[in-house]
């Protein structure tokens, strides 16, 4: 990110309203659809603002590669990818350092809720394709992933949903959009479990004081609530 901030993004908050008209603690509009990929064991499509993600689960099935088999439990294989046309500059296809790291933290964000021990020696493939990116792609992908896992009928201790808390113009705000992410001061993606609100993913870069970090955690707890509701509503609607 360059340090040259375009004039129109110098003021990201005016009269407590953000550039897209949201309040500081307001999520972008959320839309979730279940069962969008018939050949998958479970799938989901999600839109959070302008970020759009497809999630598919294949499995539990035979684990491949075989040397990665865990005799005690299933292995969750996560592949997160930004598709080439998802951003203004084309993304080179194939794994990058960024996508490798995000795949790893996403796996950790979901592993603790999935009853992997129900399927020893098997593999569960989770593919997350970002078809349009406007900040918060990993958070959106995680929110979609747990819906797809639930749709696949894989037993879980709860749903996982994620959002980001950021700092823009020195104020904390929920669910950053593209310009807020690019020209803001801090970004903290965070994922929580629906049942106990414990944290399964947290990354932060930028600048937070001790108090800001504390506030950000409690803001996240509050903001993620509606995401769990949206996940549950989408699943309920599918089975009606």
């Amino acid at each position, binding site marked *: *990110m*360059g*340090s*040259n901030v375009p004039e129109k993004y110098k003021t990201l908050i005016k009269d407590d309203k953000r550039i897209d008209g949201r309040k500081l603690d307001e999520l972008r509009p959320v839309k979730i659809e279940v069962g969008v990929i018939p050949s998958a064991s479970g799938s989901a499509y999600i839109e959070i603002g302008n970020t759009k993600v497809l999630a598919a689960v294949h499995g539990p099935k035979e684990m491949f590669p075989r040397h990665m088999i865990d005799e005690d439990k299933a292995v969750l294989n996560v592949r997160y990818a930004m598709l080439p046309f998802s951003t203004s500059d084309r993304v080179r296809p194939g794994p990058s*350092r*960024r996508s*490798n*790291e995000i*795949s*790893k*933290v996403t*796996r*950790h964000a979901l*592993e*603790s809720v999935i009853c992997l021990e129900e399927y020893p020696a098997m593999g569960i493939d989770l593919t997350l394709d970002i078809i349009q990116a406007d900040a918060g792609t990993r958070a959106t992908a995680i929110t979609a992933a747990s819906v797809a896992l639930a749709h696949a009928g894989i037993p879980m201790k709860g749903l996982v949903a994620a959002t980001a808390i950021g700092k823009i113009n020195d104020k904390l705000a929920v669910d950053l959009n593209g310009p807020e992410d690019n020209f803001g001061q801090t970004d*903290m993606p965070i994922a929580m*479990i629906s049942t*106990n*609100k*414990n*944290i*399964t*993913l*947290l*990354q*932060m*870069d*930028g*600048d*937070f*004081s*001790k108090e800001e*970090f*504390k506030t950000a*955690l*409690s803001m996240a*707890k509050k903001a993620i609530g509606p995401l769990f509701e949206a996940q549950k509503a989408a699943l309920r609607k599918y089975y009606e």
Partner: protein
Amino acid sequence: MTILYQNKQYIRDNITKKRDDERSNDEFRKITIETGVIGRAEGSARVKIGDTEIIAGIKMDIGKPFPDSPAEGVIMVNSEFSALASPDFENGPPREDSIELSRVVDRGIRESKTLDVEKLCVEEGEKVWMVFIDITIVNHDGNLIDAAGIGAITALLTAQIPKIDKDGTINRDGKFEGALPIRDIPVPITSGLINNTIVTDMNKNETECAEAIFTVATIKNENYCAMQKAGPSEMTDEQMLKISEIAQKESKKIRSAIEAAVKKHKA
């Protein structure tokens, strides 16, 4: 994973009473920081935390800037988990863990704006300094991120920008422009949960027992500049707040050690 099941169980069961090397839960192992260990590098450091040992080296080159920041130098962090450091490491392209380590160290330095990249512009839009921070693990006994982060910033603090000769080539004969423009000293501190107990500076066996791991990088004014949670289990917000407070406290001590090592290097 090379740790025996029995050892894992032992560490988990006993962690609330004592650690296998008798440290208290928030106590670091002995840290040593050496500077100027690689003469060919523009800056370098060797860091030991207990038996963990890493070498960080800075190399600089002239390159083209990124189109969205035509007047800014470029930072790149890369790490090598060489097969010499542990039976768990295999040769070949970087894997998940080494990519994560590089990216967490990178974010600590980048997001704290430690390196004044605007001062690394040679010719706007055409030529800027590219600062490569390469970290190699010499021996793996846990807490690689903290060792790498300490090594990277120490190497940066001791690095010298090479002189550019009249014909535009970089002088590699030991002629320098001066030190790199460094504004802060970010220090990452990693703690984990073992049997739901918070443990700082985990050795390799402890790391393999950890359910969840949380790294927090702190800058001079005690604010946080980068965080990363890893490991398959969840953490409560109280645990994260506690770990970030430990990071504030421990990073202060380590920052003084870095400053002392750099002062000695420059004397």
